[in-house]
């Protein structure tokens, strides 16, 4: 593969990891979050500080990063216990703005200039570059997908799905909405943290605008496009939205406009996403391969 394709694939693999985390919160547990880029950013900044300022290696820092983002997820998941739907959506937008403002105004985090000098990752003595780094990202994605797959089958995941469908009914069956909503937030944000850490080490530089609100919108678009609550939706969405800007490159000036128009058409005519329950793609798959469209039902 040419280095261009490798770079592109690496970036959308990282996005897919973060989008999978959002999928756990929004798709599996039904808690709308419009500020997921904040957690992506917290992961990236935590990794950047731990490696560039404290001097830890990626492998030592990673568990700490996951712990930090998970804890932040727990903390910022607390509003979800009191707020629902619209209120929660606006609150998470607010969280995104506040986190980016903090990155912007704290001198220790580099302020608006960003934080540089993040070292490369070395594995068994070799520095990971190009294909090596891509393999690491793919391994991360595989791990995240495995956790998601397990989450759709284990008891906790089923409890989350029950809360998503009807919170009152679920809690009357003895499922504690508090515990499982927070669990979904912790799992989802830890995945964002993993994506953030990979991103920081790949770019060697993080800046506040990489994690601003439009990035949250992009992550949500990935989910909507691929199919919310499906296993492979975030991956497909990230691939499509990662490749599209390259296809549109000759139309640089119209790119964002086309992007928005595409998202709008998608929501209007296929609100379940490409892999959703009633989507064209899935019914095509069903017709071709008989029953079972590939992802979980």
């Amino acid at each position, binding site marked *: 593969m040419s280095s261009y394709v490798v770079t592109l694939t690496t970036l959308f693999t990282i996005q897919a990891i973060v989008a999978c985390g959002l999928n756990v919160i*929004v798709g599996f547990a039904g808690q709308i979050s419009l500020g997921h880029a904040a957690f992506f950013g917290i992961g990236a900044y935590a990794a950047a500080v731990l490696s560039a300022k404290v001097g830890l290696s990626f492998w030592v820092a990673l568990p700490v990063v996951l712990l930090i983002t998970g804890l932040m997820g727990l903390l910022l998941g607390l509003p979800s216990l009191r707020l629902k*739907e619209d209120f929660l959506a606006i609150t998470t937008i*607010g969280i995104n703005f506040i986190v980016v*403002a903090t990155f912007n*105004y704290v001198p220790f985090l580099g302020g608006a200039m960003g934080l540089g000098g993040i070292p490369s990752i070395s594995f068994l003595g070799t520095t990971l570059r190009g294909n090596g780094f891509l393999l690491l990202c793919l391994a991360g994605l595989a791990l995240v997908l495995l956790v998601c797959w397990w989450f759709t089958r284990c008891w906790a995941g089923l409890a989350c799905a029950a809360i998503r469908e009807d919170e009152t009914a679920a809690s009357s069956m003895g499922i504690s909405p508090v515990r499982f909503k927070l669990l979904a937030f912790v799992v989802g944000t830890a995945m964002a943290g993993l994506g953030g850490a990979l991103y920081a080490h790949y770019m060697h530089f993080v800046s506040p605008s990489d994690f601003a609100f439009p990035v949250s919108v992009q992550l949500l678009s990935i989910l909507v496009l691929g199919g919310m609550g499906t296993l492979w939706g975030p991956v497909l969405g990230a691939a499509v939205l990662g490749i599209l800007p390259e296809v549109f490159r000759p139309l640089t000036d*119209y790119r964002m406009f086309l992007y928005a128009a595409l998202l709008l058409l998608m929501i*209007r005519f296929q609100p379940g996403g490409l892999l959703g329950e009633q989507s064209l793609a899935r019914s095509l798959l069903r017709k071709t391969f008989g029953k079972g469209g590939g992802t979980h039902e």
Partner: protein
Amino acid sequence: MQLFLEQLLNGIGVGSTYALITLGLALVYGIMRILHIAHAAVYTVGAYIGLGVFSATGNLWLGVLVSMAGCAVLGVLIERLVYFPLLSFPPFVPLISSIALLIGIQELCRLVAGPYIQSFDAPLPVPGVTLLGIRISSSLATVYVVTAVVLVLLWFLTTRTELGLAMRAASQDMDTASANGINSHAIVDVTFMIGSAVAAVAGILVGIHYNQVYPTMGAVPAYKTLALIVVGGLGSVPGAVIAAILLGVGETLLIGYAGIPLPRNALAFIIMILVLLWRPQGLFVRK
């Protein structure tokens, strides 16, 4: 003391412009339960149409009228083509499409009018005054007068006319209103028209007040007005107006005196989250 009063007056001015933008949003939320983020895009389009007509004809009033009409049409189009077909889906579906609309319309403005800041040099209809040594500039006075006129007209419309009664009925329960012979869809259309026309006025007013019109001028109001209608109590128009003016004053004074390093928007959201955690139903709504 004089400086404080001037800051206060400025704050009320900032708050008034927030109030004008938030009004439409509160009306729309009240009737459709949709967070109409693209409202801020309507506001941007309003400023551009107003500027365009004003530069072409030199008549500000004509610009305001054309802009209000154009935005009313845009608002109804958004409601008919995007929101209404999505009403049966969970609330985040129209919310995401609203964000997509905001980005799309902003980009369209950039493609049509160019990315740079355009100045809006229009003569103002209200003169400036000096009261007890405190100067109110002509543009600030205009902001006050226009906001007051719009608020009074809207108050009259919603509480003293049959159309207002129908609007309030539809916002309580659209199905019951329909069952009682109110054409709910028409009421929704009218609500979008009024809200969008007010947004057009706000766009022109802000454009003249700060003397700049640019494609992303709606970006900050888009999210700040969300915070405002939440704090004011979703769907409560008076609550939204009070919250808007309080925020304008609060922000201006905090930045003038407290020297907090965080930007205005982050402050607004911190206040909003604290209020929500304390009173999840909003400040001015009884449970």
